[in-house]
Each structure stands twice: as C-alpha cells, then as structure tokens.
C-alpha cells in the first residue's frame, strides 16, 4: 500500500514539478509570475489530445507537437504581454495583470475552439505491470520517464551548456549578463518559450493521467504550480522539482490514508506549515528572492 501510493504520488508530483519549472524559469529570469502559464498548459493538453485522436500520431509526436505549440504561444506571450512593459516606468505588477489578460483570452479561445466538455485520451495505455504488491500502469511509467528525463536534461543543460550558463547569468543579474556580451532579449524569449513548452508537455501528461482534458484545467493546475514555486523558493530549480514531488505525494497520501475531500486542504495546509518554518521556501535564500 505504502509503496503503491508513493509511486502514485511521485507520478502526480512529477507533473506538478514540470509545471512549476515553467513558473520558476520565468520567475528566475524576469522576476515576474506568468499567470498565463496554466492556460498554456491547457492548450498543450488539447493539442496533444487532438494530435492523438484526429491525426492518430503516436504519443511522442503528440508531445512534440504540444511542446512546439507551447513554445510558439510563449514567444507570442513575450511579444504581446511582456516586452512592451519592460524597461518602462510601469508598476512591477503590470506584467502580472497583462499575463492574467492573456490567460483569460486563451481560456475563452479554448472554450470556443474545443467546447466546454471534458475529453479523454483513447485508452491505449491501460496496460499495467505488477511489481510484487505494486501495480504500475503504462501511463504512470510513461509520465515518470518523460518528466524525470526532462528535468534531468534541463538541469544538465543549465549547468553545462553555454546558453544554459547565459540563462543563469541573466537570471542572477540581467545587466551584468548584458555587459558580458549576452543578448539578454534573446535569452528572455528563449526562457519564456522553454517554460511554455515544458508546461505544454505537462499538459499532455496530466491529460493522460487524469484522462480528462478541458478548458478550465489550467486554473487548478496553474494554482498548484504557483504553490510549488513558492514552496520550492521563488526561482529555484531544485526547489521546484522537489516541491512538486512533495505536493504530489502529500495529496496522494492524504487521499489514501485520510479523506479524499480533504486532499487539497491537507496539501496546501502542509505548504503553509513549511512556509511558517522556512518563509523563503525550501531552497530559497532570504536575501535572494526571485533569483536576484
């Protein structure tokens, strides 16, 4: 029972981590919360679903399509809602509001395009494997494999590659990065599109695991991603990864060992307790909130 629930929790948590990474990357580099991230996540889920159901492509191609759509949405978001507000004497809340605008727009477009009803993925992933007392479905293995490999690749990319280092430098101090020769505008576009691509892939994974894709799915998942962003320490990559896993495990355990209707209450209650003890989040440092 315990191990089974742990696997379930890790599966759910790894999708939270992916969503939170999107928030974290943008928070780290731009110091803003992208309120449209949940809706980009939802669009990714729909694109993946439509590719699988209508074009009958395999799930990897569908995820690639979702990632590409997410990246393009991210580039548009940056152009329309973020760039015009940068380096102008506007309130630092302005990008928050403008991304809320984009999120409302995207949700309305999704309602118009896809309709309000919930849709599901064709059930070709229902196979399951028994490992002693555990029963792990193919979907779970797939989700775990995809999200953990994406997180590992992202970590490696940030730590070792030239562009990854430029992104970290930009996140720490945009002016210094610019003085060292980094075209920081390009890094910002890259960051927003990468974050959105990760969010879209997470959308497909969540769609697969809950077997439900609907235009409002971005709101709840967006809020959970935000909670993880704060739990992990604003802008901290490791924090987002671990924070997502912790939230997922907490939710699953509160259902398994408690009452399913208190699932979110337990999970968010735990976040509040952790933040009482560490107000800066798990991996945030007091003087370096927001990656600065």
């Amino acid at each position, binding site marked *: 029972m315990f191990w089974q629930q742990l696997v379930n929790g890790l599966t759910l948590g790894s999708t939270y981590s992916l969503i939170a990474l999107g928030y974290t990357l943008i928070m780290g580099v731009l110091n803003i919360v992208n309120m449209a991230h949940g809706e980009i996540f939802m669009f990714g889920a729909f694109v993946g679903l439509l590719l699988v159901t209508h074009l009958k492509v395999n799930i990897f191609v569908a995820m690639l399509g979702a990632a590409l759509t997410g990246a393009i949405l991210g580039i548009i978001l940056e152009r329309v809602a973020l760039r015009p507000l940068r380096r102008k004497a506007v309130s630092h809340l302005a990008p928050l509001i403008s991304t809320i605008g984009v999120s409302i727009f995207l949700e309305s477009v999704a309602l118009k395009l896809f309709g309000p009803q919930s849709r599901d993925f064709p059930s070709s992933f229902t196979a399951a494997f028994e490992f002693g007392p555990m029963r792990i479905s193919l979907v779970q293995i797939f989700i775990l494999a995809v999200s953990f490999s994406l997180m590992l690749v992202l970590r490696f990319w940030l730590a070792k590659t030239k562009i990854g280092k*430029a992104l*970290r*430098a930009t996140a720490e101090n945009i002016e*210094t990065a*610019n*003085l060292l020769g980094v075209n920081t505008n390009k890094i910002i576009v890259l960051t927003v599109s990468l974050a959105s691509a990760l969010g879209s892939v997470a959308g497909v994974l969540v769609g697969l695991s809950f077997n439900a894709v609907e235009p409002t799915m971005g709101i709840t998942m967006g809020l959970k991603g935000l909670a993880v962003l704060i739990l992990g320490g604003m802008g901290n990559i490791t924090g987002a990864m671990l924070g997502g896993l912790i939230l997922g495990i907490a939710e699953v355990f509160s259902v398994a060992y408690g009452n399913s209707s208190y699932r979110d209450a337990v999970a968010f209650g735990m976040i509040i307790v952790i933040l009482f003890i560490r107000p800066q989040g798990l991996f945030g440092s007091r003087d370096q909130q927001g990656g600065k």
Partner: protein
Amino acid sequence: MLKIEGLVTGYGSIKALKGIDLEVPAGSIVSLIGANGAGKTTAMKSLSGLLKPESGRIIYKGKQIQGLAPHKIVSLGISLVPEGRNILSQMTILENLEMGAYQRKDGQVAADLRSVFNRFPVLEERKNQLGGTLSGGQQQMLAIGRAMMAKPDLLLLDEPSMGLAPMVVADIFKVIKEINQEGATVLLVEQNVRQALKIAHYAYVLETGKIVYNGTAEEVAANPRVKEAYLGGSKTTV
C-alpha cells in the same frame, strides 16, 4: 581609438553629463577623475551601452557607437568592469570567467584562461567555488580577469579601488598597468586620484557633469586646483 564629443546623458530632467569631450589614444591609460556624483559612472554607463546618451557622439575606431546595446558594444571590443564589480555570485569562479568569453569563437580562450590564472593564482585555487564566496579584492581580480577573457581592445574600469584595502589597491593598479603594457587601451574612472594619476598617461577632471581640466597625468597632478581638491592640499606631490 575612442573619442567622445559633446556627450549629454541624463536621468529624466537631471543631466548627469552636460556635454563632455574626451579622447583615449590607442595604447594609453586615460584616467577620468572626480568627486562622488560628478558623473563618472554615468560616463561609463553611456560608453558601455547601459544608458542611452541624449546627444553627442561616441566614436570608436572610426564608428559611431552611442546608443548601441551593451552586448553589441562588447562585440566591438569594449569591456566594462562595472562599479561594485557585479560578480555572478551564484556561479562558480570558472563559470564567471567563461561568461567573460561568451562571444568569443576563436580557439584562444583556453590560453587566455591560463594567463588569467597565472596572473591571479587565487582564482585558480578556488575556481570551482561560487563567486559570492570571494573577498572584495578577489572579486575585483575576478571582475578584471572576466573582462580580460573577452580580449578587449578597450578596457573600461569603473572605480576598481573602491572598498579595497590599500595593499590590495596597489596590486590592482599594478595589474592594470601590466594589462596596458600588454596592449589593451584603458579608460580608468577613479576617486583614488593619487593612484590613478600614477599609472595614467592622460587625465580628465570631471566636475558636476563637465570636464573642467585635462592634460597629461603630470600636468593634471601639478595643477594647483587638482592638488587642493583631490590630492589633499598643495604640499603633497605625486
């Protein structure tokens, strides 16, 4: 190599630079001296692209560069070591140095890294530690080393002695002189006028946004007004 003509830069309605003219001949060390708030850092920010000048021209190697973005100016061969050093504290010392060579595509980066480590052995000893763990003097060494990794033709130094112990200041100035002798042209902004005039060939005195006096370092050091205001009375000689 660098020529500034009638440069005006302001923050809104306040003009920090009220039309300055300045020339940096190739191979020289030119020092821009002045008190706090005279506009020295504003001049450096205008040159490196962090601030857009309102009017005037900055001509580098015959090309007008005023208003270009910082990364474009780096690609022309101008590197700034900013006031306060701006070390990337969450990245390792090695990564800081690698970032200095961000735009370079020639094969000499490893050799230049070697020469930075030879000049500042402490950076090599601590290359895998985070930049934020260094002391002030070591951070200044890292900032200069990082700028040298870009292989600049013109090195801009903004207050390299700020907040450092006198011993360390002497070391830093020695290094600046060496870098110049190895071929880089240097524009040095300093409040430590005595030290700056020791290594500079030419000097400009900036007061509330205007150049009030300029000449060779010896001439400037001998100027009674400079002696009075910056060198602690007329009895002292440099």
